[in-house]
């Protein structure tokens, strides 16, 4: 059951990811990314991260991606055009990415310590209570400080997206 679920989700995630980077139109890419996120949410759940699975769906796939799509629509973007510039990236990019992936996979395989097997429901640490408790105790400082990031984001978005200087 776990395995099947994992494999399905993994395939969905990878295919969506591939689709995202292969599509020429930003909207398609964005929607593909939503697919990746959905698949990942299921995996989070499998890993016992209940709260995060929810957050992934609501915050990420819901709010953030909507923002993206909204902007894409707003700017009325079409398909991207081919470009001769950045030939360097165009030529060496793929081998490099493959090498990068290969190294990561190889080293992960070769050097990984013996790991647990994941079985759904055997460990459910990531409930809202536990998360919340930790956030307000050990991680109080980052939790508070991260509010500054949000603040900056608001201010920044306002400044940059404002139409005219008054």
């Amino acid at each position: 059951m776990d395995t099947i679920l994992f494999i399905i989700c993994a395939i969905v995630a990878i295919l969506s990811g591939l689709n995202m980077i292969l599509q020429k139109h930003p909207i398609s890419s964005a929607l593909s990314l939503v697919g990746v996120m959905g698949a990942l949410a299921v995996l989070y759940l499998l890993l016992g991260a209940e709260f995060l699975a929810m957050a992934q769906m609501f915050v990420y796939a819901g709010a953030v991606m909507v923002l993206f799509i909204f902007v894409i629509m707003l700017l009325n973007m079409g398909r991207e055009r081919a470009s001769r510039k950045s030939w360097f990236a165009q030529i060496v990019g793929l081998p490099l990415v493959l090498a990068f992936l290969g190294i990561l996979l190889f080293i992960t395989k070769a050097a990984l310590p013996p790991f647990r097997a994941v079985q759904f429901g055997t460990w459910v640490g990531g409930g809202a209570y536990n998360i919340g408790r930790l956030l307000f105790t050990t991680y109080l400082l980052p939790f508070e400080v991260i509010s500054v990031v949000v603040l900056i984001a608001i201010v920044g978005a306002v400044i940059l997206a404002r139409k005219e200087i008054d």
Partner: protein
Amino acid sequence: MHLWLIPIFPLAGFVINGLFGRRMPKALVSLFGVGSVALSLGYVCYALSQLWPLTTPFTGHYYTWLQSGFLQVGFDLTVDRLTAVMLLIITGVGLLIHIYSIGYMGHESGYDRFFTFFNLFVFFMLILVLASNLLLLFVGWEGVGLCSYLLVGFYYHDNYSSYSANKAMIVNRIGDFGFLLGIFLVLITFHTLDFSKMAAELSTMPVETGAGILTMICLLLLAGSTGKSAQIPLYVWLPDAMAGPTPVSALIHAATMVTAGVYMIARLSFLYNHTPVAMEVVAIIGVITAAFSATIGLAQHDIKKVYAYSTISQLGYMFLGVGIGAYSAGVFHLMTHAFFKALLFLGAGSVIHALAGEQDLRRMGGLRKKMPITFVTLLCASLAISGVPYFSAYFSKDAILSAAYSHSLWMFWVGAVTAGVTSFYVFRAFFLAFFGTYRGHEHAHESSWVMTAPLIVLAVLSVGGGYIPVMSWLSLGFGPAAHENTIAMDISVACGILGIVIAWLFYIVRPSLAPAFTRAIGPVYTLVFNKYYVDELNHNAIVRPLKAISDVVLWRGVDEALIDGVGVNGMGRLIRSWGGLLRWFQSGSVRNYGTWVLIGSLLAIFVFGLVGGVR
């Protein structure tokens, strides 16, 4: 005995005239200029009378000039018999020529400058002969060279004068090259530069170890002498040095400075005596120079040039003398030469003065009537130089030749024939100037007494100078003179008189003979007339290549193209050309930049993986 007083008078004259001469009246300038030399002469006489009979040298130590390691050089002055002779010549003849200059330079601009440099010259010349060590001698040596330069270039606004001055200085410097190296070698060998200490060291030195290095020293010092005394191969400057005022030629380029080389060899006789090789070289140089320059003297039209080549030739005799060990004969000839050659130049000067600067023999003639005193005195001098019996050179030159006769026959014969040639060209000049008809345009007149009086004094000395017992006086230092060889003397006298006779034939009896003869020997004459093209050779073989190499090869080639162009700027260009790499790096494209980040991370992972592991 304050020996330092001897040179200090001319120095004072130099300082006073140098600083204030331009604002002083001429009379005052002459007073200081001539007076200082007179005082010096007076003090020399006084000092010598006090030191009489000067059997041991007298040395005055004044201050330590230079001390570094084992090198110690003091400002020390010494008088011995050789120096005494030199002192008298310098101050005595010097005084006469100074007096003469009052008249000769009277209406020249730069009168004060002339006396300033003249006094300075006397100062340095006195230092040269008084020096008790080699370095101080070198100081005087260079100092007289400087004054020679300044006085040859007296008419500095003239191209030829300035060129000649430079030539004199530079050629002398080439000689000094050897002199300096000689001094270094002396220091290394003896660890001292004092003549007396050198002699002491030398006496304790094993012969085998010293021979090579002593020869080397002597030859290097000889190089210096050839420069200063205008011997082959460095004689080329002296004829050109005649561009200076005539008193300068008389004092510096005839009587005193040019004899410094002979003096130095005589001074270092204790050294030369140990090296027969060097001695032989000295003698050969002397005899060849004597003959060689005498031949050039045959074809000169400039009266001063004639006397200049004659000077070179006579200096060759002196070299021959000291080279074959007849030091006292050499010095004796030095002295008589100072008299008659100074007289020849002063007389020529008197003529030139009278003709408003004309020096070309072809535009003189018939001056016998117009300038009787000059005529008589010059006659004395010409007879003297020709070695006519009982005139001064008869004794001195024949002393050298008779020594040469016993040393090496070929040297004697060359010397004797040269004596004949000498008398020929001296009388050629004499006849051309004073006999025949006047060929110039100026209105000639006899010079004033300030000029004629020194002429007369010198004429007396030229005639009677041979009776001064210099040889026996010097025998204390150089050993007794060789016995006079009557055969040798007869031959040389015969040669001399023959020369006079031929000159008389050519220029008085049958004036058409001379041009006919020159036409007959055509190319040879051209060669001799052009001084064997030595100047041209020097110019084309040394000066021009040197300039070209410096300019084209070293400056444009090595300095600008190679070191700066390829080396320094090339490095810069290389670094800049690496900038092409940056076009690749900093393309401005975000995607390329992302690629670089990826490359970097791969690199980082690779390095971590390669070197890997926890320590």
